[in-house]
């Protein structure tokens, strides 16, 4: 089908973009990569009166490390995060996550900030940014504000952004120590929405004990979820098979899935358990490899 008729504006600056959002309010939608927005407009599920295309705003492009964190501009495409040779080794979860999103066409157009703003609980970035303890900066008519990822998602397809706010960038803390990550996703076919997704990010200190553990879950609740108790369990510990199994059980308890065509709630919860166990096993193997290399 064709979308409903709409107006299209393409501001050249962030200021103009915010002005457009102020002017059109709820009638406007921000267009970045368009990989979620355009399909739902073509199904006439969404029918915004105005599209505000932010692709011509230079300050939203690129990424850089400053201070203690990585800043990723809102227009950064998934493919950049998948392939960039500087980023991928140091932020392995970004690379793993980006590489498993949809298909190459979507990855070439879709953006990390657009995905977060869309707030689909099955999306890959929400779970990954939870595991990474990320944040976003947004610009609105009242200026900039920073939102921790845990505070961004309110409900299915709902964030705490105001109608006149645009995500301008994503922040990821710079890892310290050794880092390993795993991203596991069950999908019915490639490019499908996740049946269950698990994002794991682990940093170890000098002793080899876990200094930082992040476990994000996709598609098992109204928003992306953090498996907080499992994370807490891991910190300060060595990754042993017993500990991994315990963390996997705790992570499954954190899931709050709904039964649907992709499987029952019991099924999805158990997949969280299986994936966290497999993922942490892979993380342990990778950390062992990294330690061996650096020794």
């Amino acid at each position, binding site marked *: 089908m064709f979308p409903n008729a709409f107006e299209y504006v393409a501001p050249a600056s962030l200021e103009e973009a915010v002005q457009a959002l102020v002017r059109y309010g709820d009638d406007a939608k921000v267009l970045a990569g368009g990989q979620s927005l355009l399909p739902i407009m073509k199904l006439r599920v969404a029918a915004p009166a105005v599209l505000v295309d932010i692709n011509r705003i230079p300050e939203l492009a690129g990424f850089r490390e400053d201070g203690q964190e990585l800043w990723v501009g809102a227009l950064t495409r998934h493919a950049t995060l998948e392939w960039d040779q500087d980023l991928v080794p140091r932020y392995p979860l970004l690379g793993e996550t980006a590489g498993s999103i949809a298909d190459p066409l979507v990855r070439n157009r879709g953006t990390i900030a657009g995905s977060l703003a869309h707030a689909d609980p099955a999306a890959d970035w929400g779970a990954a940014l939870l595991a990474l303890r990320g944040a976003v900066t947004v610009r609105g008519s009242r200026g900039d504000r920073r939102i921790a990822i845990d505070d961004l998602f309110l409900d299915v397809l709902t964030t705490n952004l105001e109608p006149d706010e645009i995500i301008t960038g994503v922040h990821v803390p710079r890892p310290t120590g050794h880092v390993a990550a795993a991203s596991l996703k069950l999908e019915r*076919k490639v490019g499908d929405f996740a049946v269950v997704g698990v994002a794991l990010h682990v940093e170890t200190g000098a002793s080899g004990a876990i200094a930082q553990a992040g476990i994000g879950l996709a598609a098992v609740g109204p928003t992306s979820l953090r498996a907080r108790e499992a994370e807490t369990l891991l910190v300060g510990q060595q990754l042993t098979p017993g500990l991994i199994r315990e963390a996997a059980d705790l992570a499954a308890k954190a899931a709050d899935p709904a039964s649907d065509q992709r499987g029952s709630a019991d099924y999805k919860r158990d997949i969280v358990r299986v994936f966290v166990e497999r993922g942490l096993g892979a993380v342990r193997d990778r950390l062992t490899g990294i330690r061996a290399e650096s020794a």
Partner: protein
Amino acid sequence: MALEITEPRPMGKPIKRKEDARLVRGQGHYLDDIKLPGMLYLALTRSPYAHARIKRIDTTRAKALPGVHLVLTGEDLAKLNLSWMPTLAGDKQMVLATGKVLFQYQEVAAVVAESRALAEDGAQLVEVEYEPLPVVVDPFRALEPGAPVLREDREEASNRIFHWEVGDQAETDAALRNSAVVVKERIRMPRVHPAPLEPCGCIADYNAARAHLTWYVTSQAPHAHRTVLAMVAGLPEHKIHVISPDIGGGFGNKVPVFPGYVAAIVASLSLNRPVKWVEARTENLTSTNFARDYHMEVQLGADRQGRVTALRVTTLADHGAFDAAADPTKFPAGLFSIVTGSYDFPVAYAEVDGVYTNKAPGGVAYRCSFRVTEASFLIERAMNTLALKLQLDPAELRFRNFIPSERFPYRSPLGWTYDSGNYAATLQKALDMLDYPALRREQAERRARGELMGIGISTFTEIVGAGPSNTFDILGIKMFDSCEIRVHPTGKVIARLGTRHQGQGHETTFAQVIAEELGLTTDDVIVEEGDTDTAPYGLGTYASRSTPTAGGAAALAARRVRDKARKIAAHLLEVRDTEVEWDGERFTAAGAPDRAVGMSEVALAAYTNLPAGMEPGLEATYYYDPPNLTFPNGAYVAVVDIDKGTGAVKVRRFVAVDDCGTVINPMVVDGQIHGGLTEGFAIAFMQEIAFDEEGNCLAPNFMDYLVPTAVETPHWETGRTVTPSPHHPIGAKGVGESPNVGSPAAFANAVVDALGHLGVTNIDIPLFPWKVWEVLRQHGVTE
């Protein structure tokens, strides 16, 4: 630049497809590529309810939208006696709803506008007030007393469409009672959809001054559609010109006539302008013909040695709101009576009851010769259950029951005469390709380690090539097919056939057949199909019928050309007719092979230098009425590994040995096998058009109706045995549907085989990971 294909004696050679020179460069010419001057666009307003009374339709706002030219409702069509139309199955179907709607997404109004976007806007502005009615989704519930009668237009106050049976019930029941072993299984073949990448559509271009309709349509059967249109719409048939351009996949979806077609024709007649209707993906999946939806119950009796004694099948066929199947008229359950498969069963009985429900109408034969897929799936699954019960290797059980090769032609207990086959050799070849005994040893070792590996076998027999005129017709029209060959003075040939390919490769394979018969190269022959003003009458392409019917016509028309050519050759060689020999490439004088003329010299002579009294020209037409159907068959073996943690099934290997008789082009056959196996894989693991209790379609787009990509698709290993059909002019049988018919059971049998030691005998397809996981959990298997 076109490919040069100048190899002599092209029959049986892997010649590259002639049509690909344009298709792979994006230079095909599909329906939606056609834009006519002054063309308008049609969009349909569809019902959100599965069953509801229509209280009121208000078209005021739609008509007021600038750019809208016409809004049609069922009431408008009723004035033309066109609010209902006949289906090919002898039922009738609403074009635009009057009184009530019977399925979600049913066509309620049509809006014609300057652009497609405007037409869709207009369709949204048609206001319809509905009063929801009780919905019947479950076909078993549809037959219960007290179930709402859906089709109030019929005299019968029942949701039963038909009861059909075949075989000897009393003898079958007696044989089952006396059998040492009887297995029972309920086998469901769920509702799926052919989902061609190009959806259905048409352009109706009525010219009032000429009182002539040109109808461009995505049609697998353009002549049949012309005749149906003449009968339904009352237009003179010679003033209907049907053009079926390049088709982006059909798979049976493009055999029926759809409400959108009729609406577009009425709109063009009303407005005297061309009107295009092309369905969106959702419309395709939700309203134009599903396939399958058979609920089957099987009993298979056997003696202790595994010799089957009797087969009994009871089936409920869910046709949705209208029986819009495209089966030959005398076969309401298609050729389901092929259900005895490749086996020599002494007695069998099958019955099918067709049922109305509040779902989209159908069902078409999706890459299947009319319900053969359902039959094949049933018997191949049932044989698996019997093997489990007897603790007999499923390959061995099949060897013990195959129709022996020396018994052909074989008369089946349900009335078919199988032409030829060598089933044991075909299965043995598949087993050899895999080293089957080694796989069974590996399976035992893995099982001991707690790993789940399965091997599934399907040894199917198809029945294709409808068909002989004494048995097969559609609305009275006999199911022959045709070919006309014209040889131009320079020896180049144009051939036209009554079939219409949609990716099958006819432009190459039929050129090979004709070139072989005429001593030419494939490059010398152009094959043209799909234009009713130029092609001879034929029934179209579906049910793997093209090669068995039109392929036979092509060979026989070419032989007619050659017969005349022989006389001209005699004249050129200055010998008597009886002294001319044909060596496959040239005519020679008997006993003097150096005195020879080729077909191009003969062709020139046919226009320039004829024997006295001979009619000029070199052409022939043949209408081929096949004496019997053909029975392609194969042995498919799937090897799978199951992930105990997720229930996901990985197809490690898949071997397909097909016997389709004489092979015209092995590369085209392999292509057909690969495509059909991929569809069979999707049916086994990914696809179902499911509904919730309110009759909402749960797979209305490619987000939820899953089509496999290269990532999911297994690697296919193909092999062949060749047992020619004894009655076909070149011994060919048809192959396009075999992989879709035969493979779903191989996949399902493999998964069940992996779990057989747990006591599992059946899991309904599609084998989604969660379904396998549920079974594993029930049996205490976990990671």
